[in-house]
């Protein structure tokens, strides 16, 4: 019925802003965290960036009810927060130590041989270094595209460009990574 449809649409608007924010936190905090981690590569920093993202949402003058796509909007804020923190870290010349945050848990599994696990870790670290060496224009779309919750359209909204540009940059970044990875592994 038309009346019920109208009432159904009006119901979310009647919710308080706090409830909407809580709902947003429950549904999107993991996405925000992954966006932050893809840039900062540290669990501690990623959680700080997540907190800061939602604080900015709280302080922003934009009413949540007026936002059409919460996911895109939130992804853009999270991306900006993560990039700002990354720049601050680079300015302070912070060196990321091999943190114990990523323990080699796979070694515990009896199914996977230990040497393969170590080899896998080495390749992952190599890949991290190669991604970090990419130009900013290519690195951003690439790392966001690795997040399974994000489509190319959402990646484009987060970095502030078109979907076609994102696809093109991701393709170019993958080409570079492939070449360098192959060259590095063949040397070993």
């Amino acid at each position, binding site marked *: 019925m038309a009346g019920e449809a109208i009432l159904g649409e009006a119901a979310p608007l009647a919710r308080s802003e706090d409830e909407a924010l809580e709902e947003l936190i429950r549904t999107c*905090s*993991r996405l925000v*965290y992954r966006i932050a981690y893809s840039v900062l590569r540290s669990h501690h920093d990623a959680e700080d960036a997540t*907190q800061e993202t939602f604080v900015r949402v709280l302080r922003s003058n934009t009413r949540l009810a007026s936002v059409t796509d919460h996911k895109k909007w939130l992804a853009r804020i999270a991306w900006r927060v993560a990039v700002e923190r990354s720049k601050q870290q680079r300015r302070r010349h912070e060196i990321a130590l091999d943190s114990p945050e990523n323990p080699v848990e796979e070694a515990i599994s009896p199914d996977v041989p230990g040497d393969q696990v170590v080899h896998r870790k080495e390749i*992952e670290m190599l890949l*991290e270094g190669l991604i970090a060496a990419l130009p900013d224009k290519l690195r951003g779309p690439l790392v966001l595209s*690795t997040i*399974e919750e994000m489509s190319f359209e959402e990646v484009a909204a987060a970095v502030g460009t078109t979907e076609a540009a994102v696809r093109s940059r991701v393709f170019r970044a993958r080409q570079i990574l492939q070449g360098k990875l192959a060259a590095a592994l063949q040397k070993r």
Partner: protein
Amino acid sequence: MIDMADDKDNQRHKDWDHELDLLLANYSAVDPRPGLEGRVLANLRREQEFHDRPTMWRWAVAVCVAAAMVLFVLLWPRPKVVEHKAAVHQTSGGQQGPTQVQTTPQELGPERLAQGSKSGARTRRVPNVVANTGHPHLDQFPSAQPLSDQERALLDYVRRSREEAVLLARARMEVLRRDREEEESIVRQTDLGSPGPGLQDQ
């Protein structure tokens, strides 16, 4: 042969592509520590409370800062103004600059008459001279300030005709002394109820 090489390249390319897909899939496949939502909510509630808290304490801090600034300005040591006591004092009448003095030939010394001064009452302008006010004075101008026009004129005059300047100074002092005595007698007689002689003459 060439086709086989191309096929091998394509296969190798596909293998690397697949490998890269796996690696990139793991790149951001991380989960936060359990309870992230709870921590975020708790943090936001604290932010909200801080924002909603009455701002009285902020005003108190602002008032304290303003008061401290005012005290600082008031108590800041100011440079003392040094009063230079000039050798030239004012006359008893508080007059400055050249004054008109009524002199008669009798009041001037014989030396002055011998110099061919005009007879009769005449008005001459004399610069202010040092009056003995009883305060200690210095022999020279103490301040580093430049001389005024009047002081320079006085210096020139004294240098040119020292004796005349001395005589004039003495005459001036005598006139002032007589004026002071006359005023005092008038005041005394007024208190006693009878007019003074000076007023009668006038």
